[in-house]
């Protein structure tokens, strides 16, 4: 904390390159994840909620979108739980067996 480079560089990044790289990687992973989710939610919920696009999004369509979004994230979590369970089972059964993806 009393390092002089703290005051010279841009915050923590220049004084602790390791932590900076880690943060960078975490941020980018989170970004990619969020971008993917947004893309998919928009794709699927547009399909469900806006069958015939009008001159603007109606309030019904907006409500549908919020519900659909919550629902998609619930589905994501269910799938994630199931997938991770399966990976763990698979690993338990054959340690050293090749990964699926």
């Amino acid at each position: 904390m009393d390092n002089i480079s703290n005051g010279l560089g841009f915050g923590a990044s220049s004084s602790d390159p390791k932590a900076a790289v880690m943060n960078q990687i975490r941020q980018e992973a989170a970004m990619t994840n969020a971008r993917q989710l947004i893309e998919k939610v928009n794709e699927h919920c547009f399909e469900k909620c806006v069958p015939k696009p009008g001159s603007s999004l109606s309030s019904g369509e907006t409500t549908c979108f919020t519900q659909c979004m919550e629902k998609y994230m619930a589905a994501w979590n269910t799938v994630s739980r199931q997938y991770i369970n399966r990976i763990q089972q698979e690993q338990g059964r054959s340690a050293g067996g090749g990964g699926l993806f």
Partner: protein
Amino acid sequence: MDSPTSSLEQNIDLSKLSENDKKELQQFIVNESQKARIQQSVHSLTDICWKKCVTGTIRSGKLDRNEETCAQNCVDRFLDANMTVIRHLDNMRNQS
């Protein structure tokens, strides 16, 4: 979108890393890549299983019981199918 990459080059001086730091970072990257790969699979599985299991109109923000069970089965059967393909390819390779 492109600001994270540019700040990496601007601010971080990698020459200051000790050997230990480098090792730790390597491990960190391996772990994060695996996490990213799993997340990627979850995204594509959700995509697939949403199409199969959420067929009606959206009435609430929650998955109903049928949809939840369907999604769970969908993941398991998709992975079964995946294994079947791999096993079959493996058989074909052994025969030739």
